Every structure is written in C-alpha cells, then in structure tokens.
C-alpha cells in the first residue's frame, strides 16, 4: 500500500485534522507519504515526518497561494500517477472535500466520505461510515485503486511519533479550467469571544429560534446554568450571532459536560463540533430532527415556551 495524505495548512501551520489522518495512515503500514501544496510552504514539510510521513511531496509555487481546490486537484492527480499511489486520504474540511471530489472525477476513482475509521481486512481496505444520524455503521470498500477517503473532522488525534520526512519537490502544471476561479478576499475571523472549548456548560441556538432577537432566551439559560453561548453555522451566516461562537465543522469543536441545543436540527456540520459532549439535551419542535438521534434527552417542543420556563426553574433551584 502506498498512501498519500493531503496536508492542509493555514497561516504557516499544518492542520491537526491532516496530521491525525497521517498518524492513522502510518498505523496501517505500507509507504506513507504526504503532499503539501501552497506558496512558500516547503518549511512545513519536515514537520509531517514527526507524524508518520516517510516522504512529503511539495508543490510550492506563487500561483498556489490561495487555498482553492482545483489547482490542488491537478497537483494531486500528477503525484498519484507519477508516484504509483494507491490510496489518498483527506481530513474533512471545506477545501479537502472539494479536492477529494474533484480528484475522484479526474481519476475516475472511488471516494468514500465521512469515515470514522479505516482498517485492513483480509488484505482489503475497509472504511467505517456512520449513516442515518449515526444510527447505523456502514462498512464501505473500493472496487480497486486508487482509493480516496475523507475522514470526519476530529476523528484521529495527531500524536507525534517521531521520525523525519524526505522532502521531494514536484512540478506544478495546472489545467486551464483549474485557474479560472480566483480568491479575491480572505477575511480571517477574530479569535476573541468566549472560550467555548473550555466551558463546562454550553447552551447553543440554531435557526429554530426564529430570529436573532430570540438569542436572549439562549443567553438567559446559559447565564442561569453558568455556561457559555454557542451558535450554529446557519445562524452565524445569517448574521444572528458572531462567528466566534460558532460550533461545528467550520467552527469550534467543543466537549462540555452539558450541551443544551435550542432549535438546532443537528446537521452533520454541527454535530461533528459537539458530539463528544458529556450530556446532550435538545429542544426542537420538529420530531424528525436528526439531533434527537443522539441527544441524551430530546424534547419535542417549542423553544419559546420551554426555554424561559427552564431558565426560571434552574434559577430557583440554584438560588435555593
């Protein structure tokens, strides 16, 4: 097995998700390589050695500065072909998913996504994918190489194992259609805001609140419980609440003792950011909301009725 792991980086740092996947790849054996694509990124390549990469292919070019997927498909496709790669692994991210899918089409290769594990069974690679709100696990395979896989974010811990990587530059040849889209603005989020990662209690609000004014309900309950306030991507994108409070794949990953989800459907994008909470309580008026499949206590009800009452009761109890 010759494995290639896409090494995502941001502001001069390799991303934990990619490093976790690299550690997983190393545990499966075979030749483990990484690929690093960007502008002025060669210095990062050696770090990947500490997480299990024996070799890192580097495509370092000014034209690759913006984190756009299509030029990266070009680079990965030529590495897969030229280096005899049979397995390409990605940590799920906005960028990683688009590259994996584009590469699947380019190489006519099978892509399995949302995997939480990968193992060798009787000489074949088998991935594990939770389905239907994680109510069932599906074992998935590939009809042949190259095999592509996207892992659910935060699945593997990036534990340093030591070691050094050989660094090899690869030529950059971009397809015409890969150079059409341009990044014209990159606004990095401010890092201030509540420290959600450390909070013991988080009360979070979603679209089911009905409007930004109803976040006062969430804030009231959070205050009564002594917790912090979180939000879903949908309400952050809609401008109801600041980005710094966002929990999910494109936001923060949290693991409080108690997570109270108010008007949150539990889309996979949100779930991956909070599923490791100790206890999850969900209040949502839609009985079919996916969040009820993994909440410890699910309440089918109107957040506007239940949350204010709950806040009062918690206050009484804590005051007593």
């Amino acid at each position, binding site marked *: 097995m010759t494995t290639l792991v896409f090494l995502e980086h941001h502001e001069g740092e390799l991303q934990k998700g990619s490093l976790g996947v690299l550690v997983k790849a190393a545990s499966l054996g075979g030749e483990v390589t990484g690929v690093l694509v960007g502008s002025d990124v060669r210095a990062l390549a050696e770090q990947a050695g500490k997480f299990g990469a024996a070799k890192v292919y580097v495509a370092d070019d000014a034209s690759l500065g913006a984190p756009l997927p299509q030029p990266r498909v070009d680079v990965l496709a030529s590495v897969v072909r030229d280096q005899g790669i049979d397995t390409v692994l990605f940590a799920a991210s906005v960028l990683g998913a688009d590259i994996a899918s584009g590469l699947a089409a380019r190489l006519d290769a099978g892509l399995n996504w949302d995997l939480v594990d990968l193992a060798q069974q009787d000489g074949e690679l088998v991935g594990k994918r939770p389905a239907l709100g994680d109510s069932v696990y599906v074992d998935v395979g590939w009809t042949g190489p190259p095999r592509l896989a996207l892992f659910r974010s935060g699945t593997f811990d990036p534990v340093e194992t030591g070691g050094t990587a050989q660094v090899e530059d690869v030529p950059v040849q971009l397809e015409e259609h890969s150079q059409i889209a341009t990044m*014209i603005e990159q606004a990095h989020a401010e890092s201030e805001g509540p420290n959600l990662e450390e909070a013991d209690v988080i009360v979070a609000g979603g679209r089911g609140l009905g409007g930004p004014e109803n976040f006062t309900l969430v804030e009231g309950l959070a205050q009564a419980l002594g917790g912090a306030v979180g939000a879903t991507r949908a309400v952050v994108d809609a401008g109801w609440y600041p980005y710094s409070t966002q929990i999910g794949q494109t936001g923060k990953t949290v693991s409080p003792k108690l997570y109270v989800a108010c008007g949150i459907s539990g889309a996979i994008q949100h779930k991956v950011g909070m599923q490791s909470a100790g206890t999850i309580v969900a209040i949502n008026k839609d009985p079919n909301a996916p969040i009820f499949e993994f909440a410890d206590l699910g309440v089918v009800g109107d957040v506007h009725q239940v949350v204010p009452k709950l806040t009062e009761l918690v206050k009484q109890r804590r005051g007593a």
Partner: protein
Amino acid sequence: MKIAVCVKQVPEGNRRLDPSTKRLDRSGEGALNPFDTHAVEEALRLRDAAGGGEVVLVSMGPQKTVDALRKALAMGADRAVLVSDEGAANADLVGTSRVLAAVLEREGADLVLFGQQAADGDGAVLWAAVAERLRRPVISQVAELTVSDGKARGKRQTEFGYDVIQAPLPAVVAVSDAINEPRYPSLKGIMGAKTKPQETLSLSELGVEAGAKTEVLALSEPPPRGDTRKIEDNGNAAEQIVEFLAEKRLL
C-alpha cells in the same frame, strides 16, 4: 441567463437501510432534498433579477423523482430533466457525476447550482466532481451569491473565516442553507407545475454509463451512546429537563 439546478429526491420520514442491498430504502414516499430548495430559490431570484432566462432542474433517480421535481417546478422553475434508469441505481460519486455532467453538457447552462448536502446520504461533495467533468470553475458553500458582468461571486465560510471567490461564467456553485429562505409554492405555482415540460432520459439516450467505484460491504450497530430519551412537551418539559439534569448531577 440559463441556470441549471441539480436536485435530488430523498426518502421522507423515517429512513432505513435495506438489509438485502445494504443501501437506502427508497421504496417509500419521497421529498425534494430540503438543502436543494435553497439552490432552487437562489436560481429563481437570479433569473427574476436578470429579468428573464430559464431555470432547468436536473436530477437522477427513480421514476417517482418526478414528484420532487414537481415541487421545484411549483416553486417557479421552468423545466425538468430526469435521468431514470435501473443501470444507475448503484451509481456512486463517480457514476452520478458522470451522468449529471452529460445532462449539463447538453443543457449548456451559464450557471449550475447545487444545494449544500444530500439529506439522506449526508454527501456534500458532488459539485466538485461535476465541475471537474465539465472543466468549469467551482465555488462551494456559498452563503451570498452575486452574478453580474458575466461573473459569479460567492462569499463563503471556511474553518478560518470568510472567503470571497470569483469566477467567470459558465461556473458551478454550491450554496449553503444560510443563503436564503426558500419560498413555499403558491396555489398558482402548484397548478402551473403540472403543465411544465418534464423530460425523462435513459442512460442509453444520454449515451453514458453510470457505475460505481465504491461498494457497501456490511452494516453494523454503532457503538452505544447510552440511553437516548425523547419526550413530547405537554407543558411540563422544563420540569422534566430539570429532573433529568438533577439525576445526572449537572445542576
């Protein structure tokens, strides 16, 4: 401007995997994938803002997908093309993207829109494979879309903040569910949908094969998460939550 919107029918209500095929049981009632309604809505807004043009729905699935397509037609789309063929039943990303790209090549739309994910298989990748087959630029996860001077410009959220990406048409854009609030079909729209053109194609008519490079091997129980309890609010849900939290020593 001609806009193609790729939509999918997903099973309604309680979903299950068929133990014999190990695939999603699609025999029951179906619905338009809710994430796709945002893409349909965005297409309608762009068409209407441009003062004309056409919104074409493109889908692949069982024959009864026409029900889901009718809902999108009732919202205001002009026409629908469905690829329905037994030979496409097991198609995965590679196969589905090949089939959709063949239809889209034929349609030659200025803009191809996708929703952000399929509500059934949780897939959120198809647009990039289709864009690659069409050799067109792609912008994904778009929460704000503007189209002017022959260019699409999308603002989208990533793990690190917001990006703005621009691409000249023809382009492929996947929209997030934050982009708009989809309209409900009007009575007039529902009546009118019945007479809108709907075309059904087989793979041979399209001259393409579907196929799959991935396979489902087995189903298993997930690791237990402990008991999950679901209650209906009969006016005392708040009390029940407090009791539950007290039991768990979380108060």
